[in-house]
């Protein structure tokens, strides 16, 4: 086993052969299926540990490309990204990979929700870094949708539909 193969095995990086195999598969359109039956943090019974590793590696690439290098480096360094609310002055959303959104308020600002965490999941299973980038776009560009669907919660927790 060469060093590159060992590295891929260790960190789940997709090889060119893996990419070619995936490219040969029909594009999976997850909106065509129902996923409610799946246990939390699962991509399905047909997924192997290698599938998980490869999916996470691909997700990391696309999340970085979606956010751009500066934001990606920031979340790697700080562990979160923050976005100010455009609807609620003095409110900031703190986003962390694979976790609920934390709602933070400036001093004297009344929180828009009684609970400090917002639970929002994708409707189909996704690697958590990929969904993190999606959630960032929603909060930045579609805050009204976030407000409409969010389930306020009293504590932090890993998201159930990501892995």
């Amino acid at each position, binding site marked *: 086993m060469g060093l590159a193969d060992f590295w891929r095995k260790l960190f789940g990086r997709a090889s060119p052969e893996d990419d070619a195999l995936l490219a040969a598969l029909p*594009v999976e359109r997850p*909106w065509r299926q129902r996923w409610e039956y799946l246990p939390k943090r699962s991509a399905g019974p047909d997924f192997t540990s290698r*599938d998980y590793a490869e999916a996470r590696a691909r997700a990391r690439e*696309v999340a970085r490309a979606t956010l751009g290098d500066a934001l990606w480096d920031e979340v790697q360094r700080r562990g979160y990204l923050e976005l100010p609310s455009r609807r609620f002055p003095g409110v900031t959303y703190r986003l962390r990979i694979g976790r609920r959104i934390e709602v933070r308020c400036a001093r004297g600002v009344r929180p828009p929700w009684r609970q400090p965490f917002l*639970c929002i999941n994708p409707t189909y299973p996704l690697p958590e870094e990929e969904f993190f980038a999606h959630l960032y776009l929603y909060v930045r560009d579609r805050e009204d949708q976030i407000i409409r669907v969010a389930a306020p919660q009293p504590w932090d927790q890993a998201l159930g539909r990501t892995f």
Partner: protein
Amino acid sequence: MHRIIVANRRGHQVVEWEITDTEEAREQIAAAERILREAREQGCVVSKKVGGQHVLDDGPFDPQVEEYQIIAPIAGG
């Protein structure tokens, strides 16, 4: 090459097309347009790359766009 990134449990898969005056390119573009429309009809959101940055977009499919991405619908809880 232009592309749609389809986010799914595989991380993502890609639908690509070229802007050339050939039957193959026209078929690729039609297929890309179909997948974008279908995803939107099922509640997905679409982003497109503008100036090196992805922004959510409600506009019609434009084959000149460098990169689209299909974003998962969201639900609370």
